[in-house]
């Protein structure tokens, strides 16, 4: 099903180059997934062990362009900016960050200029402030150069529920979610095409990573499956998938993991033994299972042990 969707898209949706500004290298592989909606595909890798990891993209309105996530480095952000200029001459007016993780957010600086407003969850600044030192150190190590805190661009407009942004004959619904993948996830729905950028609320292929709340995430996803959306752009995996079927693998993994971890806690097993032993649910689909399963077990355990 998902592969079919992708194939259809690859056949008919490729961006048509409009203009290539000099000294500007656009991201490769940018795909138009719906009219005026573009995605730069990501490739599964552990953060700071690869480039272009997350699906990031932009929506073109009659007035301006909204960017949804900016990639893992300044260079990735600049390449996305360049790819936008191949598609349209309209200026970027919004950068919407779906959450704090570096593979989605560290390209922000490429868009920091007059006329661009950064939008994020009200809890994003705190999350970024708490992780900033670690990210700075690791990004510097990965890029082999001393980066400065100025790489972090904080949101100017923050939200706790839902806002709408008009980019010219085109309205984007931006929603702040309860604690799920992180405690500050944002989703963006392009009302014109009913295409939703879900950030890391949905993973395909890449194992879901818990950095918020396993119970909250399951709850948010279950609630969202009743929404009528044409397509969704998952944070990782194919650039476009159908809804609500795209939510199923993530939901199945999270509910299975929750069941296993609850059983482990009930039997008196501690966190370390849970991480050493719980290797389910596992499916052929998941990439990076060996890199993220122990982390997920730990995060789930630390949350579920407080259930009464």
């Amino acid at each position, binding site marked *: 099903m998902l592969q079919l969707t992708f194939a259809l898209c690859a056949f008919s949706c490729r961006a048509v180059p409009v203009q290539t500004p000099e000294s500007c290298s656009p991201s490769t592989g940018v795909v138009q997934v719906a009219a005026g909606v573009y995605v730069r595909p990501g490739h599964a890798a552990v953060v700071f062990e690869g480039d272009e990891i997350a699906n990031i993209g932009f929506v073109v309105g009659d007035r301006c362009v909204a960017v949804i996530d900016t990639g893992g480095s300044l260079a990735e952000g600049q390449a996305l900016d360049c790819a936008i200029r191949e598609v349209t001459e309209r200026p970027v007016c919004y950068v919407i960050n779906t959450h704090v993780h570096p593979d989605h957010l560290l390209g922000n600086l490429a868009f920091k200029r007059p006329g661009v407003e950064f939008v994020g969850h009200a809890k994003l600044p*705190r999350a970024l402030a708490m*992780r900033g030192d670690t990210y700075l150190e690791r990004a510097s190590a990965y890029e082999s150069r001393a980066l400065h805190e100025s790489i972090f661009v904080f949101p100017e407009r923050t939200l706790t529920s839902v806002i709408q942004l008009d980019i010219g004959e085109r309205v984007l619904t931006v929603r702040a979610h309860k*604690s799920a993948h992180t405690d500050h996830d944002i989703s963006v729905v392009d009302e014109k095409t009913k295409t939703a950028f879900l950030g890391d609320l949905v993973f395909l292929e890449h194992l879901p990573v818990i950095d918020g709340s396993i119970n909250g995430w399951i709850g948010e996803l279950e609630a969202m499956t009743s929404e009528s959306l044409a397509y969704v752009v998952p944070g990782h995996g194919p650039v476009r998938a159908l809804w609500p079927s795209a939510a199923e693998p993530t939901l199945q993994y999270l509910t299975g993991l929750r069941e296993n971890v609850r059983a482990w806690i009930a039997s008196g097993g501690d966190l370390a033994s849970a991480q050493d032993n719980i290797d389910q649910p596992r499916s052929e689909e998941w990439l990076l299972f060996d*890199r993220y399963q122990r982390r997920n077990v730990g995060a789930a355990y*630390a949350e579920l042990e407080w259930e009464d």
Partner: protein
Amino acid sequence: MMGNSRCNAFAAQLGCATVLMMLAPVMGEATTVAEDMVWTGGLRHAYFGDRPITQSDDLIVLDAPNRAEDAAIVPISITAQIPQTDERYIKTIHLFIDKNPGPLVGTFHFTPKSGRADLALRVRVNAYGPIRAIAETSDGELFMSRRFIKATGGCSAPAGSDLDAAMARLGKIKLRTNSVARLAQPTAAQLMISHPNLNGMQMDQVTHLYAPAHFVRHVKVSFDGEEIFSAETGIGISENPIFRFFFVPDSEGQLTAEVTDTQDLQFRQTLQVVPVGTLR
């Protein structure tokens, strides 16, 4: 910036200038490997002076994962190799993570009534580096068990994932036994404290957001009024601190946990323990 933050790692406890002086070539123990620089170059002498420390796993064994998947919650355990007797027992265990801001994670005290000086807890690990437990016996000897924790993976950072949930439950305590309590036998127990354990180290210079440090600083557990386990703890302890330890119930009695944080908030929980074999 990077050099500065390295210095910050010690500044909290020792002051930057002091640390820089201490990093100068040190007398005493030879530096065997560069990764022990922080320890040999300052920590060791700041906390233990010239007292001899035997590095071996004969008295206690520290167990830590090779790789910290989630830097915010790294499970650590310490297993004693001797029983707690009135004649000789492990009195104190000091836990250090060399490269953390505030390397001393905690100081943990045991008594003969502990039965075993075993301890399991969760810590924050800021960077690739050594973690070490130094046990002090009742007759004043020091033994060190040392492990090395590799770099963290993925989007990991030593911050909590859902601070608000921890804050909403602030001070909630779960206290339980983890094994069947048997009369006069070491019995495993677990103390869980819901607390965000904020380390107060946010980048306020950029954001002008500032959450002051707010963490659990003291824990005391007693059985029928006699102390069996206590600890002075710092920001190296994970959000929602948890401690597994032992005690010897020599009668039916009450296990009491008392917790104090840096805002002097106090939390308390009790558990009635009826050991198997008790005459009633």
